[in-house]
């Protein structure tokens, strides 16, 4: 994202256009604030940003971690047995098509407004892409890879760790990229509901007090946080698994 100056130029142009439009049509700032007002609001908020950002970041990371902790074993189970697949998959789909906005209040009521409950909300949305991507990757392992391993040593657990999982890395990371952005959404929803701290709560409370410039500022910071986390996942993939990005070319099994 940051490697593409064109995206930054587009963003700048949009801001300038927005500023001009607000000035020309004289839009009241509680409806649509000018970018300059948003910046002023952001600067005035000063040191409070730090606690808001860390709060949301913590919820996102804990939720994401929880989703990984539950998602990986679940994906392995699903890819392992057709029975588990049929037993678990429908529930995942039902879970995914139930709006998190409807589920979050229940979780917060049951679990309280602490980090744990909020992380659970974030994990609830993030888990689906992790499970689906991981299970898909594990199941997509070329038959010949597994046959080759089996002809050397018939050891299913070894094959999972040394053949299936490495093969699935590319799939897993595409799932993780989606999951991390969903975790941000989940965290924000949890903060909306739990009315505590964090960037989500900042958006919510600023809107309630008609402080629209502040709401916009929080929104932009939130978007930036999402972008950074998303890019981070890509960077980790490139650092730890450089071969995974060039895998299609080496998909030797269907050469």
């Amino acid at each position, binding site marked *: 994202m940051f490697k593409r100056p064109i995206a930054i130029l587009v963003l700048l142009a949009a801001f300038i256009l927005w500023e001009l439009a607000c000035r020309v049509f004289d839009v009241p700032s509680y409806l649509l604030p000018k970018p300059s007002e948003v910046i002023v609001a952001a600067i005035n908020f000063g040191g409070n940003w730090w606690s808001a950002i860390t709060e949301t970041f913590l919820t996102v990371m804990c939720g994401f971690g929880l989703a990984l902790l539950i998602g990986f074993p679940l994906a392995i189970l699903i890819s392992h047995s057709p029975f588990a697949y049929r037993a678990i998959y429908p529930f995942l789909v039902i879970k995914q098509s139930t709006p998190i906005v409807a589920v979050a209040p229940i979780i917060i009521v049951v679990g309280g407004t602490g980090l744990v409950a909020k992380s659970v909300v974030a994990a609830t949305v993030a888990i689906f892409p992790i499970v689906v991507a991981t299970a898909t990757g594990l199941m997509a392992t070329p038959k010949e890879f597994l*046959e080759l*391993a089996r*002809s*050397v040593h018939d050891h299913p657990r070894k094959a999972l760790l040394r053949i299936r999982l490495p093969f699935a890395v590319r799939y897993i990371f595409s799932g993780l990229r989606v999951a991390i952005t969903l975790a941000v959404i989940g965290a924000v929803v949890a903060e909306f509901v739990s009315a505590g701290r964090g960037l989500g709560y900042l958006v919510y409370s600023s809107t309630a007090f008609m402080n629209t410039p502040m709401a916009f500022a929080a929104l932009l910071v939130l978007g930036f946080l999402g972008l950074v986390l998303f890019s981070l996942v890509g960077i980790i993939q490139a650092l730890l698994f450089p*071969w995974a990005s*060039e895998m299609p070319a080496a998909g030797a*099994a269907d050469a």
Partner: protein
Amino acid sequence: MLAAEPAIACDGIVKVFGSGTDALTILRDASFVVRHQEFVSILGSSGSGKSTLFRFIAGLLKPTSGHIKILGREVEGPRDDVTLMFQNPTLFPWMSVLDNVLFPISYRFGRPTREQQAYARDLIATVGLAGKEKFSPSQLSGGMQQRVALARSLVRHPRIILLDEPFSALDEMLRENLAIDVHRILSKAECTVVLVTHSISEAVLLSDRVLILAGAPASITDVVAVDLPRPRTVATLDHPAYADACRTLRAAMRRNFQEAADV
């Protein structure tokens, strides 16, 4: 091991894929024997069941009926002294060329010894890829990948080696040269070799006998002995018996093709 026992004995192999109305019989009563240190080629049209047959011999798949014995023992699963080189290179993209070649050792026993590593490097050089040990498979052409797979299938000193169209992605010249190299290496290693190929000339150049797998469902319809001296070299190509064997095989292939068309 009893030298009197054939290296491979396939007896009445039948394979049916699927069941009920979807059942598809691929092989019908395929029987043949491969003797100790013999080089046998299997010629057969695409889809006749050659790769499937190899999976039986390698212990990766069970035939619907029939018996396969290796060195006198019924095949029950993969054996250490039998390696199958797959039709596709099947290289792991997360490993270097060297690590791919060493995979049969490292996957089973952990870190390879110095001697094993040195041997793997020798094999890589033999297949013409010296200096490419640290390359990733994605940096290699299809033919180079096949050669890495070939080196890998030799790393554990197999007694029986099954080569499923190992040279199909190579150009004619390289193919001939590499085939002769492989023949020399495998003869020296006293390997028993079964090679699947679509090329009549390649089969004749390398083999002691050529089997034709034909029909639908397929079985071994012809066995052609190739009476050419070992070692096989480029000079073999000019031997009168070479042309004779090619002619005989081509005629047999034509006859099978014709019979298939007549049905």
